[in-house]
């Protein structure tokens, strides 16, 4: 009975939680994105719905769900329906192998990384089919661009990942994290620092792979209206949107797992750093956010806003307190570090978007084929030789 629960119930519950929770998380990632972009552009950003725009994602979700469902008359109805579903399903399926914590994973399969790579390849199909089925010039151009871009950058990304796998010696996501614990180093810094090159290659290719700025040519709004999802609106568009943010989360998770130590804390082998990093750091972080919320609460004038900010401040201070209880801490410190690292990478995604102008199409291809792939290949060979020598 116990074994049955562990084999079936836990993965099922986790799957349900991820599917139910991730749309909300994606909504709040967009809120963070809009706020951070506003910061970069020295403006305020969302301020109207809830305190500091805190309830905006919910308002957006309601709007998207209530919108009229429009299918262009010349569209291929079935494929038009299928494409966003395909994108979302593949993106969310990839979550099943992400190691959120030591015991927090839907399935620790021994080909974990390969599953994610193959799923992301299928996910491209959603983009291409969506653009094609819309029967619109802009959509078709967007999807053609996305096909070319994703195919070329997947190669560079593959090379970077293979470099990481060579060092790890396993495809299982938990195995990769454990290998970093045994090797006492994050793989981004291993091999005498040579692994940093694949890490950078992967970071750039991942941005291109998720169609984010400065590689957002498939949906370049100044050229192609909205690219492959020009004809999509309402709930179908929300699915594409969800898929994009899920993909961002997944590629960030791969970067974290493969190069940045997964759910391990920094310097996981130094026992002296256990208390400052596992207890003081998260408690301090959430405490600071809580105090920030409390200060924000005092600045608001509307009673409802004050209430929401008060609840937020209490929740954050509660989380800070929870990290100080050893038993709870043991359960949540792994996910904390994993999600913390993922958030840092997601912040970088937004940071790139706020900084770099979009590439021209030929520049994109040149960066992909003339720089990323040779560098990835070279890094693979050099790292392989160094590993061989070390053995």
């Amino acid at each position, binding site marked *: 009975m116990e074994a049955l629960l562990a084999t079936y119930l836990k993965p099922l519950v986790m799957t349900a939680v991820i599917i139910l929770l991730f749309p909300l998380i994606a909504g709040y990632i967009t809120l963070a994105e809009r706020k951070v972009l506003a910061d970069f552009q020295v403006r*305020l950003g969302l301020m109207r719905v809830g305190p500091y725009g805190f309830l905006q994602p919910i308002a957006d979700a309601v709007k998207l769900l209530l919108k009229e469902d429009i299918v262009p008359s010349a569209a291929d109805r079935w494929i038009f329906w299928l494409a966003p579903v395909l994108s979302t399903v593949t993106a969310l399926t990839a979550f099943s192998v992400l190691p959120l914590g030591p015991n927090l994973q839907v399935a620790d399969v021994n080909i974990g990384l390969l599953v994610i790579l193959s799923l992301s390849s299928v996910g491209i199909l959603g983009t291409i089919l969506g653009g094609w089925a819309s029967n619109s010039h802009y959509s078709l151009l967007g999807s053609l661009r996305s096909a070319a871009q994703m195919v070329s950058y997947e190669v560079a990304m593959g090379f970077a990942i293979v470099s990481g796998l060579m060092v790890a010696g396993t495809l299982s996501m938990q195995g990769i994290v454990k290998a970093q614990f045994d090797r006492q180093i994050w793989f981004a810094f291993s091999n005498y620092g040579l692994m940093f090159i694949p890490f950078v290659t992967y970071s750039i290719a991942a941005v291109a792979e998720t169609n984010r700025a400065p590689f957002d040519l498939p949906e370049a709004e100044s050229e192609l209206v909205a690219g492959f999802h020009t004809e999509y609106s309402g709930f179908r568009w929300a699915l594409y949107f969800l898929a994009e943010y899920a993909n961002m989360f997944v590629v960030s998770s791969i970067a974290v797992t493969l190069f940045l130590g997964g759910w391990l804390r920094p310097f996981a082998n130094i026992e002296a750093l256990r208390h400052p990093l596992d207890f003081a750091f998260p408690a301090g972080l959430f405490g600071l956010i809580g105090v920030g919320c409390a200060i924000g609460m005092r600045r608001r004038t509307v009673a409802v806003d004050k209430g929401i900010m008060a609840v937020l401040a209490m929740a954050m201070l509660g989380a800070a307190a929870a990290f100080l209880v050893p038993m709870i801490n043991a359960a949540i410190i792994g996910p904390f570090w994993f999600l913390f690292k993922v958030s840092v990478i997601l912040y970088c995604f937004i940071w790139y978007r706020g*900084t770099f102008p979009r590439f021209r199409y030929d520049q994109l291809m040149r960066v992909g084929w003339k720089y990323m792939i040779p560098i990835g290949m070279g890094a693979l060979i050099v790292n392989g030789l160094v590993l061989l020598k070390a053995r």
Partner: protein
Amino acid sequence: MKKFLRAVFLVDLIEGLWVTFRNQKPSLIYTEQYPAERPKVAERYRGAPRLNINPDNGETLCIACNLCALACPERLIVVTSERNEETRRKELTTFTYDTSRCMFCGLCEDACPVDALELTQDFELATYTREGQIWDRQMLEEGPRPTQYTH
């Protein structure tokens, strides 16, 4: 060589990232939440016109000399007056000011010998009709009454 190394280590990109990063300070935020938060207008800003009244007796300061109307490059001020036979002085009857044609050059307030006509710091001049842009004496003296919105 230096250029090559800059390109290899993506120095320019990192410099760009640093520029955006250091601009995140909340103190640099330039926008304001307009209806809730009023912008500070410069002291010498020339906005909505006002016809000052004497605070002691409530009578207008205007002596109907018509100098503002003559000074106006757009000829948008019309002053009418009639002679009071008792005091033998000109008294203002109507004063119209067409803000739709006004360029807020301030020549009228400069021309005014008694500081009756003044361009204030009020900048909310939008109306629903063209006729609403033409201000009569009452509006000039009491200020425009904007529609009150509730939301």
